[in-house]
């Protein structure tokens, strides 16, 4: 096995979510064509990572907006002096306020004045939306389940032929 390019591109969480959805749709199509669930789902490892990753992404900010909104935001941010990874983190983390934007953008204070920071947050919120208040796990929201929960869910889903 040879790694030709360790990192040929970055993928945003939303794009990975899209890949997982396509994979699931393909598996569904195979099942409806008559293949048993076990062959369509290819392997246990794939099932595991698919399920666990989908669970994580469904609770992450990328579940709040669509790809068109993401493209629109990137278009609007073109004029802003932000690096590619800063824009990627903004899309993935969806900062709602200045404190949440600070860890994503290096030296925020020196590069942008207060008005610009407000403007930037405004663009983010108006294009992608705001993360729901209190939905961050502190208020008893169930974030990812424990390992045992996951496996029991999987058993219920798998159709044994």
């Amino acid at each position: 096995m040879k790694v030709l390019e360790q990192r040929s591109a970055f993928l945003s969480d939303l794009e990975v979510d899209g890949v997982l959805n396509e994979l699931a749709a393909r598996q569904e199509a195979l099942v409806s064509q008559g293949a048993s669930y076990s062959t369509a789902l290819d392997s246990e490892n794939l099932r595991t990572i698919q399920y666990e990753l989908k669970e994580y992404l469904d609770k992450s900010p990328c579940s709040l907006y669509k790809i068109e909104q993401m493209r629109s935001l990137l278009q609007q941010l073109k004029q802003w002096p932000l690096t590619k990874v800063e824009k990627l983190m903004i899309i993935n983390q969806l900062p709602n306020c200045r404190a949440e934007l600070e860890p994503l953008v290096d030296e925020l204070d020196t590069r942008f004045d207060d008005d610009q920071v407000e403007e930037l947050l405004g663009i983010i919120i108006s294009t992608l939306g705001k993360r729901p208040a209190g939905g961050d796990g502190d208020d008893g929201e169930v974030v990812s389940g424990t390992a045992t929960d996951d496996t029991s869910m999987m058993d219920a889903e798998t159709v044994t032929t």
Partner: protein
Amino acid sequence: MFVLSRIEDVVRLAPDSFSSSTELALTRAINGKFANKVVDGLGLCVCLYDIVGATDGTVKAGDGGAYLNVEFTLVVFRPFRGEVLTGRVAGYDGGGIKVSLGFFDDIHIPPGKLFAGMSYDLAAQGYVWTTDDGEKLDIVVDDTVRFRVDHDRFHDCTPGKKGEAMDPKLAPYSIIGAMDRTGLGVTGWWAE
């Protein structure tokens, strides 16, 4: 968090897969080999993204399977240094805080990479951050936290290296994080 990696590998297709299309058979084989596995130096492989190209299948003597040289791209979980991620507190002790993403658990935040006023309170058996304003904020299991990726570590888990036993505690790929700046830590601390 995720990157695309281009790989070249030899894939063996078993004879019973000859009835399906090459593309489907290769997809199955590659997903079967790489899904949810750590490739040393690369990261945690998620699934196949696309197949760039494949040679015709060659047959070896005594083996009915077809061997193809395939070039493909994989979706790989490999956060970059300095990236900010959101996860759930899985546990903690005097040695640090363990954070989990659900699909990836080997994230550790050592005490040296926490906020300056944060320390392990033996009485409360937990981490407490005494802020400049005198507020005491604690971290509890299942809290949603934001952390920065400080660096990551790969551990070669090849079995049987010169007779040394495999250490089950050493993960093939682990991330060391930090929660030491504004915006990091429990998300509820910074929400407006």
